[in-house]
């Protein structure tokens, strides 16, 4: 099967997963070079290049990986549910190394100042061009969440990202937030796309018929390759279904098995699933649907330095926000994967040369908005980040703004996983606020909710995250709460996880029968009223001038 030699081709060590530990190449060198990042001895006859969850980040960003990312049930303690020092140990990475900075939250601020911002589509273009120079027949696959996440993507209805991606030239993509542009806009873009928009699990709800192409066949390196797309399964539940009425999604495991059979019958020697399921869903799917050789995972924003093997399926997790590009080389012989080489390339923006053509396109796309984007609204003394299962400091800021600007007792901010970070001392520009809030249903509502209803919300969202069956997980983090503390036992079933809800202002327990004023944003309901959340945050930041957040100890986590 897969030779030890092939594991050793990988960019970083894989000690705990595969027992093949070694010193990472980057940490050995005094200074990083583009060649050290991108040199990879080719393996076999097929190359897959994967980007996913770029969230419209055209330019390099700070992006702090989570310090808490709990797995439950069978996923407990397994990648990607490993963080910080445990992650470094599992993958044999040196604290303080470039990989440690890219892949964990350990010593994030100091390492960020040392190693610089990550990503940028012009750097990503350089990486892709280099891989294509090495392997002209490489397939480039985009896992979706590409057209949403910045002010320019919002204002251009995704057009800036469509233009950038068309220049990058993927061979296929799948989707999630794309649909929040509205079904008409999605179909308008898809009609013009020079590559297929795949989703085996997207159905017409009325007729129960496939609504988009399920797969595309390619012949590369003499190998017949099927790429099957899988869009985010819980689209109409986690995002506003009224924006794409008439579409039904779901995991549709039986459908996936049928499509795999169909492409095998058509002669596919290699079956690749370009997935927006989320990592744990893909891990379960791989254990139950036979015949998938590779799953390129997305949605949950995990970055892993080695593929995870489930049966005969390789799972690749390529991070988010343009921070990483994955390259998977495969030796496919007689319809079987005989060996592979893998590299998760961290896109260090100060090391990788920007591609001039893409840089020019980005400049042109941003030019009409540049003055607006660059306006400094305030400064932060605190590290602002979002990722993590419970509260992130960027959401603490958003919740604080909601409570103060909307005169609420309690604030709720969704557990999105997109949104880059800011370092202490950074100015907060309008662009930065938009990077954490930009979306098509931004209205900041103000509403009355009973204590019991608040409890139901927390229980419901916690079950989306901590249900022990991955097929019931929706892939976001816990809803962020301002003005209220609570305890959560992640090992309990729905209805029993949340306790000790406390109104922080008074220290009193939340009364199930009492009504509280709650402010929040990103409601999935049509007709939600209120100012866009970025205006609420901007008004608050402008008023306080400098943001300084106290450590948030309002959530007590048990059973982790």
């Amino acid at each position, binding site marked *: 099967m897969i030779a030890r030699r092939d594991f050793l081709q990988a960019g970083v060590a894989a000690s705990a997963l595969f027992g093949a530990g070694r010193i990472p190449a980057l940490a050995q060198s005094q200074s990083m070079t583009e060649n050290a990042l991108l040199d990879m001895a080719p393996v076999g006859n097929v190359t897959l290049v994967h980007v996913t969850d770029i969230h419209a980040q055209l330019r390099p960003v700070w992006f702090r990986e989570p310090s808490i990312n709990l797995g439950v049930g069978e996923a407990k303690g397994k990648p990607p549910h490993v963080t910080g020092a445990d992650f470094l140990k599992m993958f044999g990475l040196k604290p303080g190394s470039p990989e440690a900075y890219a892949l964990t939250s350990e010593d994030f601020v100091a390492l960020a100042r040392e190693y610089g911002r990550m990503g940028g589509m012009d750097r990503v273009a350089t990486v892709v061009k280099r891989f294509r120079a090495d392997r002209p027949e490489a397939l480039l696959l985009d896992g979706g969440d590409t057209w949403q996440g910045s002010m320019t993507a919002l204002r251009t209805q995704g057009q800036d990202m469509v233009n950038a991606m068309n220049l990058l030239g993927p061979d296929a993509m799948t989707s999630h937030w794309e649909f929040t542009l509205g079904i008409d806009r999605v179909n308008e873009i898809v009609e013009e796309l020079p590559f297929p928009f795949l989703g085996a699990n997207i159905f017409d709800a009325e007729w129960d018929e496939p609504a988009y192409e399920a797969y595309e066949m390619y012949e590369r390196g003499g190998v017949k390759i099927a790429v099957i797309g899988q869009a985010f399964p819980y689209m109409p*539940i986690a995002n506003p279904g009224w924006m794409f009425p008439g579409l039904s999604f779901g995991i549709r495991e039986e459908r996936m098995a049928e499509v795999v059979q169909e492409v095998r019958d058509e002669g596919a020697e290699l079956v690749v699933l370009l997935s927006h399921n989320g990592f744990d869903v893909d891990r379960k799917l791989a254990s139950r649907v036979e015949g998938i050789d590779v799953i390129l995972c997305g949605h949950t924003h995990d970055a892993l330095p080695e593929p995870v093997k489930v049966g005969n399926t390789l799972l690749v997790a390529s991070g988010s926000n343009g921070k990483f590009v994955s390259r998977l080389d495969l030796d496919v012989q007689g319809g079987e994967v005989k060996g592979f080489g893998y590299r998760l390339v961290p896109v260090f923006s100060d090391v990788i040369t920007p591609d001039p053509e893409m840089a020019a396109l980005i400049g042109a796309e941003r030019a009409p908005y540049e003055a607006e984007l660059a306006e400094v609204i305030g400064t932060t003394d605190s590290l602002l980040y979002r990722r993590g299962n419970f509260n992130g400091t960027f959401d603490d800021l958003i919740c604080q703004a909601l409570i103060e600007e909307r005169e609420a007792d309690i604030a709720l901010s969704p557990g999105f996983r997109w949104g880059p970070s800011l370092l202490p001392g950074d100015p907060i520009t309008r662009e930065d606020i938009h990077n954490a809030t930009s979306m098509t249903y931004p209205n900041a509502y103000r509403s009355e909710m009973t204590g019991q209803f608040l409890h139901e919300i927390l229980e419901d969202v916690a079950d989306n995250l901590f249900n022990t069956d991955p097929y019931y997980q929706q892939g976001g983090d816990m809803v962020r709460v301002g003005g209220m503390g609570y305890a959560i036992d992640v090992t309990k079933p729905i209805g029993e996880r949340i306790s000790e809800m406390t109104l922080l202002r008074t220290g009193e327990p939340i009364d199930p029968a009492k009504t509280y004023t709650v402010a929040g944003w990103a409601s999935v309901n049509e007709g939600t009223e209120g100012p866009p959340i970025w205006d609420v945050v901007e008004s608050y930041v402008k008023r306080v001038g400098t943001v300084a957040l106290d450590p948030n100890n309002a959530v007590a986590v048990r059973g982790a």
Partner: protein
Amino acid sequence: MQLNRRSFGLLAAAAAGATALPRAAFADEALVKEAIMAFTGGVEPTEGGVTLGAPEIAENGNTVPIEVSAGDGTEAIMILAAGNPNPGVATFHFTKLSGEIAATTRIRLAKTQDVIAVARLGDGSFGMTRREVKVTIGGCGG
């Protein structure tokens, strides 16, 4: 603004199921068992023999697509919603002239619950499958 019951994406059915109606208004396992025994004539069905297709999480609790199918010779398939006020949903009857032993329908689910399919198979035995369908508030993924 005045938020209705669906504020924060709450499915009205889910809230009603959890709080507003008295517990006794919902089917419990005794009612489910009663319905199964009436269908089988008192025979305990065995696991399997019938396949049940249902979403893991309902996109709309008011209209959840359900598919049932079984092998040749199957005479009838009964569908139950274990958590609805009345668990009975439908019973499909098949004959030798039925081209395929399969049926699809859409059902309303008041809250997260098991959907159950029981089939009277060609050899006179009974098969059963259950699947949990979650009815959720939603709105916080991504």
